[in-house]
């Protein structure tokens, strides 16, 4: 592993690290609602400031926190241009061939990009300050009420936890196979798109084959250790909401309410 994969848990003792994972999860959901409702410059400013405060509370290095944005800048550029250049408006600022640049399109593009960027950074902060185990536990608690309408919450939570658990394992395996194929002459970092496309299959096929094999083995191992779908299992100590968790969710809700209702 030569670099930290996106979305890796970074242990720490900051305020955000210590917060109840469920509070963080609820907070993120409230924040998502606020982001989707945002449209005015003032609203975005408030949200960005808020994210800044969260970052400061998380104790993460700034570079690490915005790392996912640097990896996806191309994606943002495409989304922005698609919106800016193809938005059908009555009085475009500039037209050429099939493109028409319009004010509404530019605003729309900026809107989408800002929203996505805020969501990505917020999600990244959650994942970096909460261990996968904690996220799963929080997820299970969040979904608990659904038990009463016969939704197998424990099984769903287990599926999520296994999926989260295997991300770093798979990432490491991808890295290993990428290296093995590089030695065999695959050109992953070639400047030519054709070379890169051609080296995709040698990477994807082994990773898939191994992932299925691993899934089979995991299922066998779980059954061998007595796993059955039904019944209640315990995993670690139960956590309860504390005053500071309530406080955090309330502050979050208040800020987002201001954003949605006032700005």
């Amino acid at each position, binding site marked *: *592993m*030569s*670099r*930290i994969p996106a979305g*890796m848990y*970074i*242990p*720490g003792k900051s305020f955000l690290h210590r917060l109840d994972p469920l509070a963080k999860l609820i907070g993120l959901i409230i924040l998502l609602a606020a982001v989707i409702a945002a449209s005015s410059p003032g609203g975005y400013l408030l949200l960005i400031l808020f994210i800044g405060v969260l970052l400061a509370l998380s104790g993460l*290095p700034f*570079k*690490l926190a915005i790392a996912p944005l640097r990896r996806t800048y191309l994606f943002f550029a495409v989304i922005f241009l698609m919106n800016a250049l193809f938005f059908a408006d009555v009085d475009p600022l500039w037209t050429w061939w099939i493109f028409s640049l319009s004010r509404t399109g530019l605003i729309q593009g900026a809107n989408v990009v800002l929203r996505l960027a805020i969501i990505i950074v917020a999600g990244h902060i959650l994942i970096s300050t909460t261990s996968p185990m904690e996220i799963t536990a929080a997820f299970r608690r969040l979904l608990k009420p659904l038990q009463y309408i016969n939704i197998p919450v424990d099984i769903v939570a287990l599926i999520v936890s296994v999926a989260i658990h295997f991300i770093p394992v798979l990432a490491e*395996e991808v890295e*290993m*196979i990428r*290296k*093995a*194929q*590089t*030695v*065999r*002459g*695959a*050109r992953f970092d070639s400047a030519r798109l054709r070379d890169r496309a051609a080296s995709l*299959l*040698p990477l994807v*096929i*082994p990773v898939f*084959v*191994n992932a299925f094999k691993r899934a089979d083995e995991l299922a066998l191992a779980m059954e061998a250790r007595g796993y059955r779908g039904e019944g209640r299992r315990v995993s670690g100590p139960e956590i309860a909401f504390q005053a500071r968790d309530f406080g955090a969710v309330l502050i979050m809700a208040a800020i987002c309410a201001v954003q949605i209702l006032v700005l």
Partner: protein
Amino acid sequence: MPIVLEKASYTYAPGTPYEAAALCDIDLQIADGEFIGIMGHTGSGKSTLLQLIAGLITPSRGKVMIDGCDINARNYNRDVLRKKLSMIFQYPEYQLFETTVEKELAFSLKHSGLPGKEVKERVRRALEAVGFSYTRVRSLSPLGLSGGEKRKVAIACALVTEPKILLLDEPVAGLDPRGRKEFLEIITRRNKAGTTIIMVSHDADVLGNYAQRILVLNQGKLLLDGPAKRVFTDIEKLEALKLGVCRPRKLARRLKECGIPFPQDIAGYDEFIAAVVEVSKKGGMSHEPDTGRHVYSR
């Protein structure tokens, strides 16, 4: 010198809480045709060292030169390196992906610029080198083969480029004794034909028997470097580090402890047997042990 490392260092994930120094100021020179074994604990930097030489990672500091060229220089053509050097990873069978064994091997020659006939010929040679019949396996699916056969195909994939340098990362892990012996014989044959072999292994017996020169890595530093015999002479140092020692060397020490004047610069079984013959000729083996114990007691 064909492979030269100058003060090469490597740090994982620099600038993050996961930062860890894997290798520290490694100075190393390897001549053509050497058979080198690398020993060390998990995390001592063995695999990192191989990956540096293979050009898979760039040193944080220092240089890696192969045949006089810095392989991390901007103007260095990596295709030259890929033709010269192959590497067999731990569990190499995980890298297989093609629909037939023949295509699987030909993938390694895709950028070689060789004519189709030569590619075919090389594929045949590589498959035969690992003990396959070309006509039998060429159109089988590599993913449908048994574990041992998959491993052989993966090894053939590394041999098919006929590399000058072959790097092996724990190649015998998970092989049965017969597979292990077959594999080591293939590698020894390659080495006799002039290929430089650099092999990482936990198994001191394998290294003692096959490698001419042994490097011992400890916590990212090159601790010992020398002919196998000499490295294993320092048995106390190896044991203090809780590293394995090859069995012939341990037997030689037991013999000495029993009062038999037995040479201690022993690494492989052949050397051990030769020493036994030598010592018995001098009548040394009939020596009554001082301790009064039998040599093979305990």
